[in-house]
């Protein structure tokens, strides 16, 4: 069950012999070693794996926030060397600036990415995405006055508004209660279905991975973690939660993933 051959022209992200070593007081700690992976255009990929196996490390290297030790990550055939707005990140904590309103938080990024548009155009972008995540009425609230779930909605809106080539999500709903989490998964999928931005999402939640992803990537436990297995999720899009829960394949997928994690 290894990576099926992919058409090279469709590959957006190409990991080649990716290795990450953290220096520690007791010597070098090899988190990832010779990791190989290819991610296709407009694909939604979920990554699951045990805590501490190196998922965040992998994601922050794609984001350019974390140095690569050996090997390389090619983004559209160019190696990644640093961060940039072409890779939108949605962090686990909403990481909005609490002293700004939801609107200002988004404007900060939109101003940066679309410096040539008129102010009016940029404001329209912000309003459009805030509306998409259901926050039109709240856009002039300061971020620290919004609930966690609302803040993460702004995070989603901000990420999409910047029109990134790749969306990186590190357990974006991990801090939310299960009701809010399901709500936000729906919001995310709804926006994503329209925009089809290549997305890589880390999650601990098997059901979330199946509901959102085209492929679920399972990482082996560290140190020297690698890709253990990949599961293709064949559900049609747009997906409806109820239909998927009743789909016969659902339990097969679920068992596959849980089987891997319990191994």
């Amino acid at each position, binding site marked *: 069950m290894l990576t099926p051959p992919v058409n090279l022209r469709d590959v957006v992200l190409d990991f080649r012999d990716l290795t990450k070593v953290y220096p520690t007081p007791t010597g070098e700690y090899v988190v990832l070693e010779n990791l190989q992976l290819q991610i296709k255009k407009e694909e939604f990929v979920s990554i699951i794996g045990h805590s501490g196996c190196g998922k965040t490390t992998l994601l922050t290297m794609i984001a350019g926030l974390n140095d690569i030790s050996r090997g390389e990550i090619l983004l559209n055939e160019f190696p990644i060397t640093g961060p940039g707005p072409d890779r939108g990140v949605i962090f686990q904590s909403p990481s909005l*600036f609490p002293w*700004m309103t939801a609107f200002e938080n988004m404007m900060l990024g939109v101003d940066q990415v679309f410096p040539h548009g008129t102010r009016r155009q940029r404001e329209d972008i912000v309003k459009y995405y805030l509306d998409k995540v259901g926050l039109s009425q709240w856009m002039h609230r*300061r971020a620290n006055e919004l609930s966690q779930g609302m803040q993460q909605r702004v995070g989603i809106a901000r990420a999409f508004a910047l029109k990134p080539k790749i969306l990186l999500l590190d357990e974006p709903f991990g801090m939310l209660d299960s009701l809010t989490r399901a709500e936000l998964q729906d919001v995310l999928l709804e926006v994503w279905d329209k925009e089809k931005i290549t997305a890589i999402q880390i999650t601990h939640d098997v059901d979330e991975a199946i509901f959102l992803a085209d492929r679920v990537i399972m990482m082996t436990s560290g140190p020297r973690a690698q890709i253990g297995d990949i599961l293709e999720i064949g559900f049609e899009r747009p997906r409806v939660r109820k239909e998927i829960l009743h789909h016969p394949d659902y339990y097969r997928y679920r068992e596959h993933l849980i089987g891997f994690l319990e191994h």
Partner: protein
Amino acid sequence: MGQHLTESPVAPAPKAPLAGLGRYLPARAKVGRQLPGMARTLGISLASMAVFLLLWQMSASYLYGVEASARIERTVREQGPEAGAQMEACIASGDVSCKPNTLPFPSEVLHAAGLLLADHREISAKKAEFNTETAELNVVRAEQGLDPIVYTGRPSFVDQIGTSLKTVAVGFLISLLIAVPIGIIIGLNDTLRIAFNWMIQVFKPVSPVVWLLLVFMIVKTLTLGSDSDTSFLISCISVGLCSMWATLVNTSLGVSSINKDYLNVARVLNLGIGKKIFKVILPSAIPVIFTGMRITVSVAWMVLIAIELLAQSPGLGSFVWEEFQNGGSDSNAKIIVAMFVIGLVGFLLDRIMFWVQQRVSFEKAVG
């Protein structure tokens, strides 16, 4: 003197998780719940004030007794029993000439406060009169290119308060102008932080008196040849140097301890250095910086009195010193009045800073 306050940076308490809940409660419910609390605070404060006054009264009368009997004894010893009896009668009559000189009674202090106010009214009236008299002359002098004639009489107690406030305000500004930019720079740069660290650690605990002498040495040399009065300048700069440390330490702490997520967002958005500092780093450090400024203001006010006293620049410090030196019958009471005024003004300044801190901060300050 006062330096203990600047010992360590003080961070504002993290926002309570439910702090925002109050917004959703109807206003009346809030007032209703606060009222008993306020009444209780007021009640307890009033009661403790009464106890305070009582203890003061008792100590004052004890000290008065000690001083009086010592005085009578000495008179008896030096001039014989007859003079002693006279002295005793004189003291009992309450005559100013033989009044025991010690801790004044609360009533005396209140009386002295009244005298100081009356004195202020008198001096203000004189000043106003002087100004109307010289107004025409000053117009003529201005036309001739001469300096106007200004009132140079004795300043009143209230004028002294004003002068002290002016000194502390200028001193505070000086401390901000030095501490905030340096704090930001060393907060951003590890190397500079290490370079400055020994300096901060060594100079922070230095007493205001020594700062004053240092500033005096430098200003004296720099103003050599000019005969203008430098005492105001010297006290402002000294106040600034003494009090700037809390702001310096807190600014660098606030800037350097910024949440890593915020920095990551700034990096992902490719924010330029200017935007990064002014839109991200500074706003996130504001609560800590303002906590530092609040300490700076209270330290500035505290050291001001000592510095004015030594620099012989006008203000509450020299008022206290002159009263102590001239030893009039109500001098002690006036010194105590000054003590209360100094305390109240300090309290007021702190409240103002607290208010400003709450305006500018996205977190709730702890009062």
